[in-house]
């Protein structure tokens, strides 16, 4: 087969639908990565315009441009858009586009999930844009502290738009994180062991795990606050046993890791781009990986440093202050690894390198002011002034936007398949760099002079006029620079000449494919022996095109790629991907209806939408797998591998496992909230605890034991060739028993509007209930799969997935019911 014929055959298999339809049915990571990045850029422009409105307002004292109400919406939306609708989705887009190409796979682990995540992001983001255009945007600051953000301070719909829109968008972050994790661990080129992975993949692995453990506390906080706003469950109202500090803890449990979720991908870009620009390899690969992991871990220990002024005990302050300054160590390791890389190489000052140098100058300042703010006494003075605003812009623009622009210019030939011809990028760089420092250096100063953030204006004669005007002028110069960058990228993407395949002479696999990128990425999957496969073997791209790697035979017209062993990268299975479908967008729409139902208080819509999602999810999973045992498939190079769906731990098992990591964090945050209110909230204990009785705990315990046992029995029966029905029946009985224990707890609880205790009892019981009901539905699904022939004695991976979920439901039911009943039993 010639390379051209292979190209045509593979394109037929992998291409998205032609025309406009393709936008809505594509599941291809190249398409979706681009769509993510493009949409994020649109939000960047919107957020940037809001920033300019702020600087226009603050340019002169007593400006009549905006009143306090409008200004509140503008600064809240600027922060919200830049954090949730620009930075995080842009990272997801970059990772979704690049990772399979760097790792040597043909797509991400769960292609339809990528699409579902994208549409959730679009719909959730649109809700916030709609709120802004109608003047109903959230207005209590981007971290939405109650009671100001609750019914007391914001009776309108404004805060609901934030809670619901952002939670919707976070679904997309969780989806992306699950699939990035599974892709990095399992979907790599043959022979790419963990220590040969491109450094960017290591960073993204850390980031994805951080999203899975960092976002759930905020999702929980949003759920609780929305329950308070919609139904009056008083989680954050002190008179009824709530505490507004709980929100701050949940928010910053998310919010601080979030900063590193944004910074680490940017650091990954630098670690990838800088060595290529310096014509060498990264200094201290192992050190840099360790530093990234250390940052990820440390970032979860320092959320309290956003709360130094809330009256935290002195000892705790000392601990969190130490942890906060300690973060500077792994950061320093990375900075010096990069400078050392330049030192041992021959750097060339091309445009990506310029942005990286701008990163150094800016980020080091931001890091140093960060260390200052971590010192508690100084924090007490500078907190909530423009000094903090300046610091966070140094970190986020210097530490995120500049490296991302370096990456954008570095991968632009890859994205567009064209050479950069118009040289607008260099003047744009200087405008942004100079404008940025003028704006924010000035802002440090005015912050130290006492100008508070979030004040819509200031008086004459405080000595702030000149500094603010300089800051605003700098801001507009920065904005013009960013506009030029976007224009530069647009015209270079649209009108210039075709470029070379590997213009920078890089060593990673994404440069070993034709440009523009084919839908299938690699005509055959290359065996990998080192960290820079293209340095080890300069002719690799041609050999890939000639089909000399694995899975080079287009064969039966199914979308196939390899699944490898986590540590060694040894090929283990062949996975078959689903093809183009509108299922993700439809499911995202129906999910959106559920969110909309809560937003407009049309609660009858919610159960309907949930049923719709359940039906679509059923269709979603039903289409996977095969009805026949296919045995071993030829993967090339004399290697015969089984289908992933016939393994005991198919990709779906891994996806479920990492989804449960996020879910467990959510549950742990819920228990933390319960314990926090118990110990810290002033108006505790509640009037009465839940009285356990005998029926509830007994039923619950019986179910917790029966359900996992039933599934184990079902698997044993299946593998022995019998019917699974007895085992599944036991599992269902168990689920029903646990569910009734949950219902009994809800029935026994007092009015949830009366005290936060009863409200949280209902939330825990509801959590248990939802998980057992889902476990029961999965058992029913298994029975259907068995009778339809998808599950057989040799293909029982799905049983393992259901078992995993059921075990999780049983464990959380045990913990949840214990948390509900023990207080009543002990007193």
């Amino acid at each position, binding site marked *: 087969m010639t390379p051209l014929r292979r190209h045509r055959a593979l394109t037929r298999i992998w291409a998205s639908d032609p025309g406009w339809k393709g936008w809505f049915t594509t599941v291809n990571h190249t398409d979706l990565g681009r769509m993510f990045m493009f949409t994020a850029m649109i939000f960047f422009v919107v957020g940037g315009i809001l920033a300019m409105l702020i600087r226009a307002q603050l340019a002169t004292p007593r400006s009549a441009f905006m*009143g*306090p*109400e409008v200004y*509140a919406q503008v600064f809240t939306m600027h922060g919200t858009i830049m954090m949730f609708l620009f930075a995080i989705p842009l990272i997801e887009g970059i990772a979704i586009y690049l990772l399979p190409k760097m790792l040597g796979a043909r797509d991400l682990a769960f292609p339809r999930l990528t699409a579902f995540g994208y549409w959730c992001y679009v719909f959730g983001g649109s809700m916030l844009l709609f709120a802004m255009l109608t003047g109903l945007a959230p207005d*209590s600051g981007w971290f939405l*502290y109650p*009671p*100001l953000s609750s019914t007391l*301070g914001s009776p309108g719909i404004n805060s609901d738009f934030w809670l619901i829109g952002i939670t919707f968008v976070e679904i997309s972050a969780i989806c992306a994180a699950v699939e990035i994790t599974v892709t990095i661990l399992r979907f790599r080129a043959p022979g790419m062991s963990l220590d040969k992975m491109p450094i960017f993949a290591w960073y993204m692995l850390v980031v994805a795990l951080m999203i899975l453990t960092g976002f759930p506390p905020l999702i929980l906080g949003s759920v609780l606050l929305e329950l308070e706003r919609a139904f009056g469950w008083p989680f954050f109202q*002190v008179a009824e046993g709530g505490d*507004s*500090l709980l929100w701050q803890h949940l928010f910053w449990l998310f919010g601080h890791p979030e900063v590193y979720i944004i910074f680490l991908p940017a650091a990954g870009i630098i670690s990838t781009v800088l060595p290529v620009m310096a014509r*060498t*390899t990264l*200094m*201290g690969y192992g*050190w840099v990986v360790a530093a990234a992991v250390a940052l990820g871990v440390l970032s979860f220990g320092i959320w309290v440093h956003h709360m130094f*002024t809330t*009256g935290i005990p*002195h000892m705790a*302050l*000392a601990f969190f*202050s*130490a942890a906060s*300054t300690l973060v500077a*160590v792994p950061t*320093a*390791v990375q*900075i*010096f*690894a990069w*400078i*050392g890389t*330049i*030192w*041992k190489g*021959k*750097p060339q000052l091309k445009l990506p390198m310029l942005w990286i140098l701008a990163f*150094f*100058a800016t980020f*080091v*300042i931001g890091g*140093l*002011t960060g*260390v*200052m703010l971590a*010192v*508690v*006494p100084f924090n*007490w*003075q500078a*907190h*909530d002034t423009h000094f903090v605003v300046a610091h966070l812009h140094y970190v986020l623009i210097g530490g995120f936007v500049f490296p991302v622009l370096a990456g954008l210019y570095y991968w632009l030939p890859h994205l567009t398949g064209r050479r950069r011809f118009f040289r607008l990028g260099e003047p744009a760089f200087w405008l942004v760099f100079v404008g940025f420092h003028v704006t924010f250096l000035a802002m440090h100063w005015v912050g130290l002079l*006492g100008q*508070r953030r*979030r*004040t*819509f*204006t200031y008086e004459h004669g405080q000595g702030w006029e000149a500094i603010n005007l300089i800051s605003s002028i700098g801001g507009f110069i920065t904005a013009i620079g960013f506009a030029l960058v976007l224009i530069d990228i647009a015209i270079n993407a649209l009108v210039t000449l075709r470029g070379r395949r590997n213009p920078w002479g890089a060593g990673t696999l994404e440069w070993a494919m034709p440009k523009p990128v084919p839908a299938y990425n690699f005509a055959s999957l290359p065996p990998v022996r080192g960290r820079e496969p293209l340095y080890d073997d300069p002719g690799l791209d041609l050999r890939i095109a000639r089909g000399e790697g694995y899975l080079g035979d287009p064969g039966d017209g199914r979308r196939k790629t390899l699944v490898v062993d986590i540590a060694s990268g040894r090929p283990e299975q062949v996975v078959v991907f689903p093809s183009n479908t509108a299922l993700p967008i439809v499911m995202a729409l129906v999910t959106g209806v559920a969110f909309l139902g809560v937003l407009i208080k049309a609660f009858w819509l919610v159960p309907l939408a949930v049923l719709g999602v359940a039906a679509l999810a059923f269709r979603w999973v039903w289409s996977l797998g095969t009805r026949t045992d296919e045995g071993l498939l030829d993967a090339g190079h004399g290697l015969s591998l089984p289908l992933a769906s016939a393994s005991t731990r198919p990709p779906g098992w891994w996806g479920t496992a990492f989804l449960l990591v996020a879910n467990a964090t959510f549950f742990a945050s819920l228990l933390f909230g319960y314990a926090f209110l118990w110990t810290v909230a*002033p108006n505790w204990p509640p009037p009465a605890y839940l009285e356990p009785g005998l029926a509830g705990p007994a039923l619950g315990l019986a179910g917790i034991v029966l359900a996992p046992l039933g599934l184990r029995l079902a698997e044993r029966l299946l593998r022995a060739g019998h019917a699974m029905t007895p085992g599944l029946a036991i599992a269902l009985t168990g689920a029903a028993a646990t569910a009734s224990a949950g219902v009994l707890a809800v029935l026994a609880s007092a009015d949830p509007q009366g005290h936060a205790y009863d409200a949280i009892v209902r939330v825990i019981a509801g959590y248990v209930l939802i998980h057992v009901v889902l476990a029961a539905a999965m058992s029913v699904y298994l029975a259907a799969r068995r009778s339809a022939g998808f599950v057989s004695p040799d293909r029982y991976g799905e049983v393992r997935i259901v078992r995993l979920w059921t075990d999780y439901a049983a464990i959380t039911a045990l913990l949840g019911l214990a948390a509900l009943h023990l207080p009543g039993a002990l007193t």
Partner: protein
Amino acid sequence: MHPAGPAAEAIAALWWVMLVGSCVIFVLVMALLALALRRSNVEGRGDGSEGERVWLVGLGLVFPLLVLLALLAYGLVIGERLAPRDGPEVVTVRAEGRQWEWRFSYADAPGLVTEGVLHIPAGTPVDVEITTVDVIHSFWAPRLAGKLDAIPGHVNVLRIEAREPGEYAGVSAEYSGPGYLDHRFTVIAHDADGWAGFLRGAAP
């Protein structure tokens, strides 16, 4: 920053130390970066292994650890000094925030309430018990001390002290809605006679 009390002075000193230290570190990093760029232009490829020890162990690990330990110790000592300590002559006042005003009451004069103006004796440590009746606010008299939040249902204690009698501006420093900008108060520090007179109910 014109500190007018021990707390604000200590923090101002801390700031100048950190500013100078940061500038030194910044210049050092930039110089190393420039050096790396220059050196490699002349000499070309260096050997990685010997560099790793210098760059990663020396500059990446040891250097920041030493600097941070010193800074942390300094910060903790100051933090300790600023913490409210029991003393014979500590005066206690209460600050209650609401949208958008502050009400102050005095342990030494029960029933006395002032709105928007906090009276304290000069040269004496004062504990301000901070709380709120509605949303979160923050009590901040920049020339006297750092800020501390007013959280519904909680009482936070801030130690302030004014060396000299006089008027000091104060603001709320946690966004609290449309009236946030003008959510201000004044601290008036009296000499001994003025304070005694104030407590007796005489016009300040």
